[in-house]
């Protein structure tokens, strides 16, 4: 039993095994330590898996030893490996950095349960990304969602509760739509394994249940991924969740749902529904453009710092969808690379917000007046993250902007509209990032508010690690770009 052969199973089993152990521990410090170690090992495994996938292509692992269509098979390809890196990386960094801010926001007696929930969210998300079985995706989606509701409900503010209730209702409705979608597809093909389903869907492709199933799956996952018209839950959920949770969720939770959406729409339906790409692009391109514009505009006029970044997340999800809806190799690569780059940029920004959150109680933009003098390193990290979000060359954001615009250029005339939208929203990003820079660097701290000291080193070091990662992947983006283009090639396997 070579260890590397068992790695896919270990990736999910490890956090699952530690969660019950951590749940009822007496010492909160110990629970944090155990969770961070588990998350770091999971990241290690993810790195090993990525190397294996880059080496030998898709990794298959039959759960329970049963062959594919009968048992549940795990299938990790480049796309899954990239998502694994994002999920485990985001969790590890959020845990390493978040200790100080979590100690403030969650009472110590509840922390063991909180960290158990964190591990379950990690297990659920990495489970979705690896599995090759449609219903299994639903089960792990429920695990990660329930754990996410719990983490968000941990927020100190009472409005976290109403926010999480709306998140629960919309999340469950989304998951049930997805369930109806799989049910209809299962009714027509008789199988739940994605690869098997894609093979058998050919002869029933033009029947009505398949079309409606595709619609249900797309709407359900769009709800889970907060795509534009269905994003109502995201701003409040990210605003009132504890800061460390926002770092973790913002970096990876919506992207996993987008991963499932792309896998279903391109892997299962693309080859078989003949005008699927027209329908997919025709349906999602306008939504993506609207998401980008509305998200950026809302962010410009927003006063609460975290909700501002949440609206900008909605715009960035629009970018990913924009890339995907170009239905071309370059477009998909752009969308997938932006998943990685956005995780980096938004991770840095929310980590900086966590640093500020440790010192200030209320996070409104005008509360930051003159903060740069007292917290220079934190604000510098925030500006660096902002620059990456805008897409200044030399940062990770620029690489995805570069691929997105060149993908749009390939589209000919509609491409020009896309470029205009991308450019306008980048400028809006400049506006809302610079508004904060001006307030922080040139505002004056009013007298009676107490002097604020720099954020603790335990929070600053991971933040700056992510900022440097942002610049590094801006200058040498070989890893994410190779993974993304290989993933795009496998997703578009049929069209090429």
């Amino acid at each position, binding site marked *: 039993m070579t260890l590397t052969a068992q790695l896919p199973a270990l990736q999910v089993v490890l956090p699952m095994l530690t969660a019950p152990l951590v749940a009822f521990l007496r010492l909160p410090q110990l629970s944090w330590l155990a969770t961070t170690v588990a998350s770091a090992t999971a990241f290690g495994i993810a790195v090993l898996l990525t190397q294996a996938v880059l080496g030998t292509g898709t990794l298959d692992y039959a759960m329970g030893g049963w062959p594919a269509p009968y048992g549940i098979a795990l299938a990790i390809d480049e796309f899954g490996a990239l998502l694994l890196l994002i999920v485990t990386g985001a969790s590890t960094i959020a845990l390493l950095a978040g200790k100080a801010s979590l100690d403030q926001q969650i009472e110590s007696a509840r922390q063991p349960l909180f960290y158990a929930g964190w591990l379950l969210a990690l297990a659920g998300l990495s489970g979705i990304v690896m599995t090759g079985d449609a219903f299994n995706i639903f089960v792990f989606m429920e695990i990660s969602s329930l754990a996410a509701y719990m983490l968000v409900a941990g927020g100190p503010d009472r409005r976290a509760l109403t926010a999480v209730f709306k998140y629960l209702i919309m999340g469950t409705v989304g998951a049930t739509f997805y369930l109806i979608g799989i049910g209809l597809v299962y009714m027509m093909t008789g199988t739940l394994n994605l690869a098997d389903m894609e093979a058998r869907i050919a002869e029933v492709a033009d029947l009505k249940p398949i079309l409606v199933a595709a619609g249900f799956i797309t709407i359900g996952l769009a709800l889970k991924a907060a795509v534009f018209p269905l994003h109502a839950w995201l701003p409040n959920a990210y605003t009132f969740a504890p800061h460390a949770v926002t770092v973790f969720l913002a970096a990876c939770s919506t992207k996993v749902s987008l991963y499932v959406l792309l896998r279903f729409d391109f892997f299962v339906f693309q080859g078989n529904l003949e005008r699927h790409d027209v329908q997919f692009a025709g349906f999602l391109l306008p939504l993506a453009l609207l998401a980008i514009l509305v998200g950026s505009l809302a962010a410009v006029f927003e006063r609460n710092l975290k909700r501002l970044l949440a609206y900008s997340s909605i715009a960035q999800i629009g970018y990913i969808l924009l890339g995907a809806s170009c239905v071309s190799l370059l477009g998909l690569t752009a969308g997938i690379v932006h998943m990685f780059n956005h995780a980096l940029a938004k991770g840095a920004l929310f980590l900086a917000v966590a640093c500020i959150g440790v010192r200030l109680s209320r996070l409104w933009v005008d509360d930051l007046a003159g903060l740069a003098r007292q917290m220079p390193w934190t604000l510098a990290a925030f500006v660096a993250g902002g620059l990456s979000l805008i897409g*200044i*060359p*030399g940062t990770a954001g620029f*690489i995805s902007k570069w691929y997105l615009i*060149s993908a749009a*250029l390939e589209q000919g005339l509609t491409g020009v509209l896309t470029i205009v939208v991308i*450019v306008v929203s980048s400028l809006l990003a400049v506006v809302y990032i610079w508004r904060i820079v001006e307030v922080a660097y*040139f505002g004056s701290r009013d007298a009676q508010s107490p002097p604020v000291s720099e954020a603790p080193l335990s929070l600053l070091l991971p933040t700056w690690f992510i900022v440097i990662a942002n610049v590094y992947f801006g200058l040498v983006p070989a890893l994410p*770009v190779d993974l993304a283009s290989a993933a795009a090639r496998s997703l578009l396997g049929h069209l090429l």
Partner: protein
Amino acid sequence: MTGNWQILAAVLLPLLGAIGIAATGTRPNLRETVTLATAGALTLIVWSLLPAVLAGGRPTAELFRPLADLPIAFEVEPLGMLFAALASLLWIVNSVYSIGYMRGNQEKHQTRFYVCFAIALSAAMGIAFAGNLLTLFLFYEVLTLSTYPLVAHKGDAATVRQARVYIGILLATSIGLLLPAILWIYNATGTLQFTSGGILAGHIDGPALGLLLFLCVFGVGKAAVMPVHRWLPAAMVAPTPVSALLHAVAVVKAGVFTITKLIIYVFGIDYLFAEPSAGWLIYAAAFTVLAASIVALRQTNLKRLLAYSTIGQLSYVVLAAAILKPLAEVGAAVHIVAHAFGKITLFFAAGAIYTACKKTEIDQLRGIGRRMPWTMAAFTIGALSMVGVPPTAGFVSKWFILAGAFQSDNFVAIFTIILSTALNAAYFLPIVFRAWFREENVAPPSNHGEAPWPAVLALTITAFLTLAFFVGNQPVLDLELQLVRPQP
């Protein structure tokens, strides 16, 4: 990290210097010596490249490889060499001057000032030596961002508002227009490498070429061609060494240098000349020159007057480049140098006057000649260079531009140059005349003499350079004539 070490050193040395300055922030004297040492070392390294380039060599180097076929790579060619040499030389002079100015006015945040200065210079070096359009765009943005703290140095509400205009226009034009243009070129031609004779031949033609040129020229906001010039007067709120840096040494020169480089190495002179849709550039440049000069006439604040004069002078270079004749291209390059020397002298003078007696308005300058003879002498030489009177550098560059214009019988260019020379004279000479031959109408706050000695020393050096260039411009000419003669 491969290739010619001098180039990499030139780009990375100022960054090391910046770190050094930040580290020695608490001890001003040590910090100043680090700045000067870095500036000196940079000039040595850059000028050591000169003999190789003069001999026709094209040293190259590579830093990173972000996109598969698009490295962050450098290639030194005559135009870049000239700009780098100019920038590094004037940085020394500017550092000396800013020591005097900052000490004289007891400005706060001096460490941040010098750090951003060093980063801006590193970006300028990057732009000068850029081997492809991506590298150029990268350092172009770094330059914008590193100069923002310099412009917003004072930190009060008015400065912040003007700085917002500055960063807004520059970022909007670069992301809004230049980035799509770069991607369009990359998408159409498959490469962004600067190759003499241009890379667009056969890929983009007809009206599309005119549109691409429009995107490029107005995308490079730093060249301040008319509609996108608003940021330059807005940047006047910065302390004078910064304005000097913006106008003579780094930012504006980078803009104009980029446009010239695009025209020569991306579009190609003859390809553009043959294309009727690219004809509008000459009219845009001409309009900018005239309009700026006319607006400069009505200015009362000295620094805003210099700002508008710069917009005009810059469009000279664009005009020269737009004539699309080899001689005119040489004239453009030479004008970059001439204007640099002239304008930095004028700004140093303005700064000295402000440091000495806090005067900023033109009509306050009556009879100041007697109080500050050295400063006003330099100011006169600078003014004459702007107008283009023989002993100064300005004359040399205008001579070449006119020669280029006559070569292609471009009457629009000829008429513009002549009319603008007259306008320049109209707004510069009265100031000089009043300064020397009129009595003081405003009682000076204190019986002040000259500005602090480092400031005066710096402006005399640049004044001397303006005159010396008239005589010793042969090496620059040989360097630039390589543009015209095909590669050996």
